[in-house]
């Protein structure tokens, strides 16, 4: 998922806003036909609709998962590609149906009707007309289909579009309700789907009904964290566990910054650090009353800390100039040593880019800490899956069953016969096996786009960086060390659908803009307070009231 997140750089402008909204599962809703707006959220009744969870015991990972609280589980790690391929599906799942499927693709569109598609269709027993669409423009391509009510039979839609795109409005009007096929033990008909974590299904539900088939599901879903250059820290004799509070982190700035050498300790860190100060992700409930993050003292303390950081001279001038696009280059080049980022960056591609700049490159992340150094460290969870695929409401029940059987095939676990075909194509044609490592042939590079089928259904996330075991070990160890800090935020995965006016207030563009100017040192904390005051009177208070009456009072906190 790291790659697609990175490549939607243009959307990154709005990501700061949509990111929080999506991470908390807040989605704007508008209604189906005739201008009616459907509003609501998931409540207790969803429990009856959720599929049973039957984990797959087929494959022993090299680094097993570690469980945290409910719905929390670290991703298992693999150091090699399993040589003993197990088949999880007997026979072909399909009955010869023909379906259209649209998924986003960040890369070159493979030729239509290629050998890979043919092999997949044969293995699936259906003809899937795959229509990969340009991932960078996906958010503008899809609304033309929904407005014309011409969705394909099967489509991938990400949750992160947040307030600019309203999935809740499509659920039940254009997207099929999958509850009758998957609820409770019905899912056992599809064992690979049953092995997907419950939290991932919850994220694809609206109004207590199941709509989405999760892809890239994970039990360790957090938006991001604060990274550091482990190789450089170690060379200077600094260890990450020295950082136990916000002031510890600030003090590193003095030690690490050397402007004459073009090195500054910090890049942007606000986004993944403000909750360390005790601020909620977006909402919290104090004595039964809903409180927005902007109203909390803890959040203001976080903003103040970030403002002081911006003014301290420990932040890279390009970061202060808002140049996020080159943050990676600065980090690889050792021009910045500490920076916030999504977890998706911690992978093989990052390792290759980093070691290209410096052979010793090693990424590390600080353990989640409490800013005061005393409280319990907390990091808020996002949804169990941030991308889901959906079936068209016009499909007949037997067609839905056929496609769910196909989804079951696509969700086969890492290292299985099915997984190998879906992700690497046919051996000898699309890949060769060289000393246990799968290498793509030219045809494989052209035709087997890693994201084509896995965007329709895929097994739970695993950590594997073949050829860079250190990355897998570091990342899984970090997950295990922080699993206890994962906490469900208020309204977790409730998929709130709200009217347009509320969603505009929810996005709070003016506050977010002023906030950004503040943690870049151009506006003071008082300016932020003023922006919050004007936000409250201009819609923020109404948003809170709406959330209280329509979500909190009716459906609870979802925690």
């Amino acid at each position, binding site marked *: 998922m790291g790659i697609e997140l990175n490549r939607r750089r243009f959307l990154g402008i709005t990501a700061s806003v949509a990111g929080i909204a999506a991470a908390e599962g807040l989605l704007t809703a*508008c209604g189906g036909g005739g201008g009616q707006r459907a509003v609501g959220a998931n409540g207790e009744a969803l429990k009856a609709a959720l599929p049973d969870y039957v984990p797959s015991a087929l494959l022993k990972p090299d680094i097993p998962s570690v469980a945290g609280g409910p719905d929390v589980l670290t991703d298992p790690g693999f150091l090699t590609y399993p040589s003993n391929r197990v088949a999880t599906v007997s026979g072909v799942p399909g009955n010869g149906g023909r379906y259209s499927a649209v998924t986003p693709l960040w890369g070159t569109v493979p030729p239509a009707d290629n050998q890979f598609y043919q092999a997949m269709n044969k293995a699936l027993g259906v003809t899937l007309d795959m229509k990969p669409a340009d991932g960078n423009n996906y958010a503008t391509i899809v609304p033309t289909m929904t407005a014309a009510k011409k969705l394909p039979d099967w489509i991938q839609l990400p949750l992160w579009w947040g307030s600019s795109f309203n999935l809740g409005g499509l659920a039940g009007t254009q997207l099929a309700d999958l509850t009758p096929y998957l609820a409770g033990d019905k899912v056992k008909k599809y064992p690979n789907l049953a092995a997907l974590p419950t939290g991932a299904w919850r994220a694809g539900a609206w109004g207590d009904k199941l709509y989405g088939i999760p892809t890239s599901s994970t039990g360790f879903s957090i938006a991001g964290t604060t990274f550091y250059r482990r190789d450089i820290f170690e060379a200077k004799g600094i260890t990450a566990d020295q950082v136990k509070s916000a002031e510890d982190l600030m003090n590193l700035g003095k030690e690490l910054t050397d402007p004459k050498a073009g090195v500054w300790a910090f890049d942007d860190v606000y986004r993944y650090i403000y909750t360390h100060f005790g601020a909620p992700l977006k909402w919290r409930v104090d004595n039964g009353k809903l409180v927005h993050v902007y109203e909390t003292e803890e959040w203001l303390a976080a903003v103040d800390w970030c403002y002081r950081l911006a003014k301290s001279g420990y932040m890279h001038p390009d970061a*202060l100039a*808002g140049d996020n696009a080159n943050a990676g280059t600065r980090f690889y080049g050792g021009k910045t040593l500490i920076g916030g980022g999504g977890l998706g960056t911690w992978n093989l591609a990052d390792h290759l880019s980093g070691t290209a700049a410096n052979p010793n490159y090693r990424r590390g992340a600080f353990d989640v800490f409490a800013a005061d150094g005393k409280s319990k460290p907390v990091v808020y969870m996002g949804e169990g899956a941030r991308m889901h695929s959906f079936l068209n409401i016009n499909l007949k029940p037997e067609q839905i069953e056929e496609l769910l059987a196909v989804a079951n095939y696509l969700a086969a676990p890492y290292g299985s016969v099915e997984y190998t075909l879906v992700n690497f194509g046919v051996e000898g044609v699309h890949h060769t096996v060289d000393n246990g490592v799968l290498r793509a042939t030219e045809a494989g590079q052209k035709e087997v786009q890693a994201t084509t089928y896995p965007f329709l259904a895929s097994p739970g996330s695993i950590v594997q960086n073949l050829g860079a075991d250190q990355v897998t070990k570091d990342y899984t160890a970090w997950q295990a060390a922080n699993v206890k800090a994962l906490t469900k935020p208020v309204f977790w995965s409730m998929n709130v659908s709200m009217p347009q006016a509320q969603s*505009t207030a929810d996005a709070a563009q003016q506050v977010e803009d002023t906030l*950004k100017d503040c943690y*870049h040192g151009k506006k003071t904390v008082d300016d932020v307070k003023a922006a919050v005051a004007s936000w409250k009177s201009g819609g923020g208070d109404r948003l809170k009231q709406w959330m209280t009456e329509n979500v909190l009072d009716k459906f609870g906190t979802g925690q």
Partner: protein
Amino acid sequence: MTAPRTQRSGTGWRVRLRRDRSLLLMTLPAVLLLVVFNYVPLFGLVTAFQEYDPLIGVWYSEWAGLYQFERLFADPLFWGALTNTLYLSFVQLVLFFPIPIALALLLNSVLSTRVKNFIQSVVYLPHFFSWVLAITIFQQMLGGAGALNQFLRSNDLATWDVMTNPDTFALLVTAQVIWKEAGWGIIVFLAALAAINTDLYEAAAADGAGRWRRLWHITLPGLRGVIVLMLVLRLGNALTVGFEQLLIQRDAVGHDTADVLDTFSFYYGIATGDYSYGAAAGLFKSVISLLMIWGANKLAHAFGEDGLYRR
């Protein structure tokens, strides 16, 4: 510039159609493109009067009348963006507009075609760079960690904040526009210069007119029509001061310095899913631009120039 008016009456439209058919055929693709990409999308303006919802489309979205405009005119951020737009436009008009003309005159006075072509290529190359690249170059040179400031730092001198200073942002933006677009802007003026009859210069020189007198009495009057045309177009576009350029640098100086009408529509309309609000801001901008171009054209006619078209 002073060609006789074409005969309009006398020939019927059928005759003219037959006579000009190959010309008409040649313009057809351009007209089609214009219709498809410029006129058909005008229909989308209806969203400015709705609570537009992309999921249900234009036909079913709720009608909101002038509500979006009421919101717009009550929004201090909108007025801030309008002020920024007008200010940037004014600074660019004063500082940028004369530069391509001066450059064209300068180039025209270079005799060696080789040198001329070389200079021309060098100055208009930046036009083909994207704004991302242009601003990256500025950042690498003048940014807080750029070449200039690293040089100052290594010599223990005070650093100079060029890229993130809100007070001088208008000058920075104009400097970037000059660097990137001035070379491209000279093309139309060079063409106009080439159209001036060289006999005039020879005759003037024979009468003893020096370089400056020839510039004043022949070159500039020869350019006047084009200059006025460019000015009219510029005024019509006064509310368009660049989108990407400001979008990219918005975080560097803060939203209240960098937001112009176009970025306002983007951030407060599209980015938050509030499409109708963005459309209302866009429509407001278009109406004002239309009025301005109409006014400027009137003014040009009043001064006896052609403006956009001949009366």
